[in-house]
């Protein structure tokens, strides 16, 4: 009783393991849409010497003037820089630097005379510069508590672990906590103009407007307690180890005291590179016709509190005017002139190529 026909009918009963395109075994006729048939209307640009050529010339023609403008602008910016690290015996700050100790209660003062060859018109910006100071070290960058700085009471009492080892002393929270705050730059720089008639006139330095507006007004907030008195709010916290004064005594002006002290805010914006400058003071232009800083002799008086010798760092004071593009930096001008010239040059090269071999290329591509 061996019946006998092998048929493949059985196969149809099986389910096909279908991939993404499968869906069902018997799919319907595919829709004839431009998308599904890969026939979407498309723009097919082709870059050829002919089309790129004008672009190169235009770029060249725009970039070179901009570059020249930038370069000139940068050159017109007046900048004066003085290194007062004091590692050299001849330096006025040598003694202060050499005798530095964290235990010194009295600050060491040194005076550095200098001369401006040119008058500084308009506002003059006073920077302090540090070298070989790794504000961008990972351990350093993360050693802060932004929520504490934003005025959060809980964080004030219990700083984040990121602040270690500058989070607390003897179970008392440090405010502001962290390595950044702890190492805040605390040299005091003052300027005197030595009048030709012999008197030394102090130059008024504005200490506001040096930090980002949003930092000063939103990101950094003093904690608001029941008491409007800052001293009371910071009750129960201790000052950072290396500070001379607690945070609520940074300035007498209540709008520039505590966490919203602008010197502090500027310091808290960590620098990108180990050599950096930070805005310290602004010398506002007076309403008279006289330049802000006339030509002549000046004295820089430094309250030397900030040690840098241990890590071979350097300290500088910089006086600079500012243009629309910021401080003095010839790089942008040079970059623009270079790129502009390169483009222009390539434009010329392409023009030659285009003229010599262009006809062939053209016939190949124009039809598209």
């Amino acid at each position, binding site marked *: 009783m*061996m*019946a*006998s*026909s*092998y048929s*493949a009918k059985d*196969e149809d009963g*099986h*389910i*096909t*393991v279908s991939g*993404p*395109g*499968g869906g069902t*075994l018997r*799919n319907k006729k*595919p829709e004839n849409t431009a998308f*599904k048939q*890969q026939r979407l*209307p*498309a*723009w*097919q*640009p082709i*870059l050829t010497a002919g089309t790129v050529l004008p672009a190169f010339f235009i770029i060249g023609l725009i*970039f070179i003037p*901009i570059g020249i403008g930038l370069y000139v602008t940068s050159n017109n910016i007046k900048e004066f820089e003085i290194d007062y690290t004091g590692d050299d015996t001849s330096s006025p700050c040598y003694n202060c630097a050499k005798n530095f100790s964290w235990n010194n209660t009295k600050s060491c003062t040194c005076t550095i005379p200098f001369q401006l060859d040119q008058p500084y018109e308009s506002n003059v910006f006073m920077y302090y510069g540090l070298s070989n*100071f*790794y504000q*961008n*070290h*990972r*351990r*350093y960058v993360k050693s802060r508590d*932004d929520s504490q700085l934003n005025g959060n009471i809980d964080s004030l009492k219990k700083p984040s672990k*990121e602040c*270690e080892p*500058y989070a607390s002393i003897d179970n008392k929270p440090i405010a502001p906590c962290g390595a950044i705050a702890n190492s805040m730059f605390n040299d005091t720089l003052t300027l005197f103009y030595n009048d030709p008639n012999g008197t030394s006139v102090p130059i008024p330095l504005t200490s506001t407007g040096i930090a980002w507006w*949003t930092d000063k007004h*939103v*990101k950094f907030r003093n904690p608001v307690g029941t008491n409007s008195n800052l001293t009371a709010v910071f009750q129960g916290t201790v000052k950072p180890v290396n500070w001379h004064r607690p945070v609520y005594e940074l300035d007498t002006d209540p709008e520039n005291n505590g966490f919203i002290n602008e010197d502090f805010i*500027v310091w808290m914006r*960590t620098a*990108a590179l180990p050599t950096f400058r930070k805005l310290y003071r602004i010398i506002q232009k007076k309403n008279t016709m006289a330049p802000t800083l006339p030509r002549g002799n000046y004295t820089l008086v430094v309250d030397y509190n900030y*040690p840098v010798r241990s*890590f*071979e760092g350097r300290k500088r004071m910089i006086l600079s005017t*500012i243009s629309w*593009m*910021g*401080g003095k*930096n010839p*790089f*942008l001008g040079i970059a623009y002139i270079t*790129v502009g010239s390169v*483009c222009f040059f390539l434009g010329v090269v*392409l023009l030659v*190529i285009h003229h010599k071999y262009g006809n062939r290329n053209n016939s*190949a*591509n124009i039809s598209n």
Partner: protein
Amino acid sequence: LSSSIENHRTLGSRTIYVGHRPCPANEVFIPPKFCDNRIVSSKYTVWNFLPKNLFEQFRRIANFYFLIIFLVQVIVDTPTSPVTSGLPLFFVITVTAIKQGYEDWLRHKADNEVNKYRVTVLEDGRRIQKESEKIKVGDVLEVEEDETFPCDLILLQSSRDDGTCFVTTASLDGESNHKTHYTVPDTERDVESLNATIECEQPQPDLYKSLGPENLLLKGATLKNTQSICGKSIIAFFTGTILKMGKTILSKALVCTTLKYVWQSKPGQDEPWYNEKTLKEKETNLYLNMFTDFLSFMVLFNFIIPVSMYVTVEMQKFLGSFFISWDKDFFDSEIEEGALVNTSDLNEELGQVEYVFTDKTGTLTQNNMEFIECCIDGHQYKYRDASSEVDGFCVTDGPMNTVQQKAGREREELFLRALCLCHTVQVKEGFIASSPDEIALVQGAMRYGFTFLGLESKTMKILNRTNDVEMYELLHVLNFDPVRRRMSVIVRSISGETLLFCKGADSSIFPRVKQEEVEKIRMHVERNATDGYRTLCVAYKHLTAEEYDQVDSGLREARLALQDREEKLMAVYNQVETGMNLIGATAVEDRLQEEAAETMEALQGAGIKVWVLTGDKMETAKSTCYACRLFKRNTELLELTVRTLESPGKRREDRLHDLLLEYHKKTVQDAPPAKTRVASQDYGFIVDGATLSMVLNSSSENNLHDYKDLFLQICQNCTSVLCCRMAPLQKAQIVKMVKNSKGSPITLSIGDGANDVSMILEAHVGIGIKGKEGRQAVRNSDYAIPKLKHLKKLLLGHGHLYYVRIAHLVQYFFYKNLCFILPQFLYQFFCGCSQQPLYDAAYLTMYNICFTSMPILAYSLFEQHISIEMLLENATLYRQIGKNAMLRWGPFLYWTLLGVFHGLVFFFGVWFLFSNPALQDNGQAFGNWSYGTIVFTILVFTVTLKLALDTRHWTWINHFVIWGSLAFYVFFSFFWGGVIWPFLRQQRLYFVFANMLSSVSAWLVIIVLILLSLLPEILYVVLRKPRGPYARQKLVQSSAGGIQSPRSSARPLLMRTFSDESNTVS
């Protein structure tokens, strides 16, 4: 039974007890152990799914790598949070697991359907319904008509009187004709009480050997669902690049760690007073510290191989495959189906195919024989429908009353009677025969008025033209065999005439007929053969009574011989089949699939080698190859078959050796070097299954172990290769051999039947044709298409585009992450090698997920650097991307250099700017996060614009996504920096972006650096060889005219036939 089987007793044989009743003769009965009849194609069970799947997933090097990174992030204090790599990894693993789980569930269902199939088992005289999986070796089964054999069987009893059954082996070898099988002799007794043992060989892959015993019935090939996992070239590139990048990361991390400790060794650097370590950090071991630092660096640089690339590639493949199933060109109105994509992992492999292995029956041909024409005494008769073109051959009032009627009526009728009598066709609701050709011939004769009515107790009945029934007594059938290549019948007519009719291949008939008749016919036969028709010659012979008696006794004697029966029979056959009269020849067409020839020509034009692997006879297969223009008129055929091995006085092995060396000399050694291909001779190679197994198995016996090598080299130097009489597993063997040959070329198998499954599974890309022969091939394929002609667009169109797309995708990903991470690396030199990230964590995470992922995804889905029409028209374009052209060293180096250049420009451009960080017009200074944000902004814009430069096909989606991404970046940056986020520990980016935009210098530097970065790219695009579609076309034309041999354009087959006809006939 016993005598024939005992001869086979070898070491590897197995003994089976029929009905589980041991032979009493056996001294000891050891219950033999055989495996059960269950089919398991599923991979997992409920219990082992999770561990097994996870294990398999993490065996992929990329997943494992990401797992390690994630673990490092969890354990070690690293600059970025573990979430950045953990979340995407978790996502990828989960999605993959769900997908694989679902697919396995489907496989379980399919398995169960087969395993739970009810079969009838005879046990102790009772019929018992059993599930198919519970069949044991030795069970006696009862199979009804039209049922599938649930396992391999031995035919013990049949319901037919003559103890035969008809079987189609469509799912084994693709031949859908009926094969006759006989019951085992001496089992006429009641099967229920049968007591027998069977000794047989161990299972073996050579189908034709085991098909030999005519009473063995084979079960449909057991299929294992082992689909290839992923595209080879991309995976190789993936792995290669991941390893390369891994090395880069390692070396970068090593450099940084070393530098860090060098830097720290200077006094006051490691721990200046302003930056003291915590107590814990101080206490940890120096070496442990070094190791953690090393790991931290690795985590920091690991973004160079983002998990997202993995996700993007998977997405591209998944979404990209929709375009194949959506393509309306693949839709076949006959079966109302389009293409089916079973695996989306192989889209790009379609653009890399070097070898195509195609099945013949049902794939190249429709397996639908049709009688085309015949020639009687040198006069051509062509049958035409009345509707067809009216010419001299048109038949209106009866087929033979034509103008061209030149042969005598008697000769015509003799010829038609020969067609009607000389065959082994059975009549049963139409004709059934072991060869479709015979059916076509009988049907052809029917159209001319002679109808075969059937065979009844040795009497053949024919309805002739005048509607009379003619009776012939069938005396002997001299069966067809491949060596003789002809068959004959001896019949006796009513009038007592004894006639021998013989039909066979021209080469075997011509020497046996009167020579003067040959020439008239030969011309026709040759022309028909070149047209791709299957030709047969028909001859007859009168036998006198004495002659017949002699033949009759000779045949009877030979049939009864116990030894050398085959040879003795052959001798008698040869003796009888001589001195015949040639009547005519027939031409039967195995109709080719639509556009088969055009498709094959396009594939060859694309530099793809086409191999035909078929279970069919050599002659048939050869004529098909001619018809699809795989072999051309000027192709020199090298044959390595049983026939060419038959050589007097020589052992087959020696002959094989000689032939191999000869062919090798011809094709490999004497071939002109590749450059001067112009005039080189086209070779076609023909090999059959038996010879192939000799070649492949020779290694162990002989010291001539290089047969396989020789063989492969010959094959690779031939334009087309034809392998006939292949068992399914031999097909797979061939594919495997080529796949593993030097340079491991990408192989593609295409077939429609279950017999092709093994080669479909073996090849890199398996394509199933939704043909008539069941769904096995489709189910096991990677892609299924309704017709062979669709292969052209699948490879030349879709394959090409997908390859370009994904190659670009992968390269671009490495490029964009190289210039993403390089500034990060450089920054370490300026921050005391402290692993400080340059970019904010949000940017690090979002870069690959949001800011730069969509444009490349859109590119990799929609790009058409050359339009599909152009790709289809110019098959040679396919050669340009061959051998993984876009992922080789050259392009990879280019992308790497570009990435390095961009990274350097970004970092140092901004570095120069930051030599004075007072960048605002109010004198305020920028910090490290501004630095990172400026670099990042330049990065995002440059990388996106670079892609814009590469995009040749801008659809609205590309526009939307490219400009949208940039807009999103700006929007996100504002948003991210505009709010004090309560969940963040540090508000690093608070208003950093807005402040950056308020600085003119930042704007200027961003613009100039983007332009500077893109300049070389623009120059490269402008100055490289013209690559516009039209320029390409020119290139193609020039090369086609010059270097490459011009391929004959695809003319319609019919036109060609006529023009060639005029060549030969006139």
